[in-house]
């Protein structure tokens, strides 16, 4: 036990150290290096928002929710739509101040994500707990339907952000390079969430139940705890956090119908890398994959290998499954 933890720690340090070293060598100035690091952390925090739900739900319920990426996408579209004029849920009239509209739209996206999460768990997954194979197939189908509904409502044309608001536009300067404050804001928010969820899991009664349920669901029930209710809660929370991810990503990445799949695949890489069901693993894995993608983006500039950043998470996933299928902290069998 202690030995696996130590070797995991060494592996983590080596990989993160390696990524940072590559980023450093590749960048010709401290400023560029900083940009790569910040964009890696930004990407990593967004990934964490998708991957944390994926991992905890899998650990607790044995369901890998292939629709998790679709919740991210829904969050992005709802947040975009609410903050721009002429959409379905146009808040531009109701809340003229864009700086106020932003948090309201984010909260709206989270609520929509949570509602859709309850519907999926209560309405569709619950009848299938006796048939786990079909649960997997079902979440895959739900992902498709959600993507199709989005295409139906908002068409397939990607939206890029046009609305101007404070945090998004401001910059700060370091080493003669301009850094986006918004990215820093998302990174900060991600770190706060990582800590909050960790506290929830460590300190609260519900957190203890979740951790116990990951280990032995049956025993938790035998103690008089209604596991179904816990499932619904955790699943809903996972979907809501994914939608939050989409909502805060939208001002930077816009909203498009491919964004869900991209984040789902990267989040799966994170979860496998960190070890299915391990919260610490998910947090560390997110940072690793985020950094790896940023480094790959940097490396691909000016070369003909434009697909490198998109392929990087999949390459990582394949490498992890080849070398250490249980991930950094976890059990694959």
């Amino acid at each position, binding site marked *: 036990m202690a030995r696996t933890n130590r070797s995991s720690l060494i592996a983590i340090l080596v990989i993160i150290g390696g990524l940072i070293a590559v980023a450093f060598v590749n960048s010709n100035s401290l400023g560029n290096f900083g940009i790569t690091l910040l964009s890696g952390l930004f990407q990593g925090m967004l990934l964490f928002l998708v991957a944390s739900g994926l991992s905890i739900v899998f650990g607790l319920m044995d369901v890998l929710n292939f629709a998790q990426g679709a919740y991210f996408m829904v969050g992005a579209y709802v947040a975009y739509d609410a903050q721009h004029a002429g959409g379905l849920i146009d808040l531009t009239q109701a809340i003229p101040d864009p700086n106020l509209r932003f948090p309201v739209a984010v909260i709206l996206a989270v609520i929509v994500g949570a509602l859709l999460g309850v519907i999926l768990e209560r309405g569709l997954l619950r009848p299938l707990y006796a048939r786990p194979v079909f649960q997997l197939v079902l979440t895959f*189908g739900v992902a498709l339907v959600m993507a*199709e509904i989005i295409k*139906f409502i908002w068409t397939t044309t990607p939206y890029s952000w046009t609305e101007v608001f404070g945090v998004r536009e401001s910059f700060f300067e370091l080493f003669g390079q301009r850094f986006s404050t918004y990215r820093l804001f998302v990174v900060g928010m991600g770190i706060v969430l990582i800590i909050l969820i960790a506290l929830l899991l460590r300190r609260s009664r519900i957190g203890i139940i979740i951790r116990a349920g990951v280990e032995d669901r049956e025993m938790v029930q035998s103690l008089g705890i209604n596991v179904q209710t816990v499932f619904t809660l955790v699943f809903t929370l996972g979907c809501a956090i994914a939608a939050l991810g989409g909502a805060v990503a939208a001002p930077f990445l816009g909203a498009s119908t491919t964004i869900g799949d991209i984040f789902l695949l990267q989040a799966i890489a994170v979860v496998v890398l960190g070890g299915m069901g391990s919260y610490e693993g998910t947090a560390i894995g997110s940072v690793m994959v985020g950094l790896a993608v940023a480094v790959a983006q940097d490396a691909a500039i000016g070369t003909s290998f434009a697909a490198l950043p998109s392929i990087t998470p999949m390459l990582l996933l394949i490498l992890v499954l080849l070398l250490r299928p249980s991930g950094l902290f976890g059990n694959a069998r």
Partner: protein
Amino acid sequence: MAVTPRKTGWLQGNGWLLVLLALLILFPFIVGALTDSSPYGVARGDRMIMRGESVRWQSVLIEVYILAILTMSYNLLFGFTGVISFGHALFFGTASYLFGLALEFTEMDTGLAIVVGAVAAIVVCGLLGLLIGLVTLRLKGVYFAIFTLAVAEMFFIFLGRWQLTRAEDGFAITDLPAWLDPTQSRLSFYYLALVLAVLTFLFIRRLVNSPTGAVFQAIRENEDRAQSLGYNTLNYKLFSIVIAGMLAGVAGLLQVMLNKKVGPELLSVGYTVDPLLMTIIGGVGTLGGPIIGAAGLHLLDVFFRDRELVLGSMTIDIANIWALLLGVIFILAVIVFPYGVIGTWRRWQARALRKR
């Protein structure tokens, strides 16, 4: 691999199958007679132009045969062995790219390129299945699903950007001999696709009824128990995925020849969803299910494609919401109709028998 002895003769046991086969063989001529069009197309000078109802319906059925082969291969893996793949398009698309590369990007003459391309495509599909299986099949089932999805997506992204094969646009196949070219002789290609679909069906039926097939199904029901009975379940699962990969490759080859075009869309998630959905609708783990699923859904698709849905004042092109409808059918099927057409039919029969 002995065929299980049956009390009835082979002909009697396969009666309805032979009738269906005869109908499919005669199909181009029947449609031709009904619509007064030639199954060979329309002659213009010394060339045949592929025009007319018979020729049009031939290509619809060719698509059904291709989807049926793909779905049967998927069902072997999912329905009979209990292994879920979310990247079956990987085999379909890989085979089509290899075949296209052999034909268009090598100096071999056409006949040799076709043979080399087809053999290489199918062998590589088998190897790909073997590799993916070796990496993930020792782990929980979900890892195989993840891994196939990731590899398929990776190839999809890569091929969408690969300049040699014209990235997203893909490239056309120009070099098919006349007898194999559906734009010159649709009818001979129709029979080729039919023969391959029938062979696939017979092969899978034989495999499933063999002792090996019995172990596949034992693994699907309870892998631990199959293992405790002394079977090396990993080897059986590997065998299943290799065969399924190769058969999906065959379907990919036919698709390339039919459309005479290779592009990254052949690796898109659609070619994973189609066989999955068709398997579930037709009947998971049944022999006829994939064929019913493939035929049913594809014919519905063709039928509804250019129609409109009028909802009060709104008019919606069905083509625009077809994928959405499929998805909804998919979810409903998983929840309320999990045994598919054939499975549900058998349950009704069994209930009726019990009541008597």
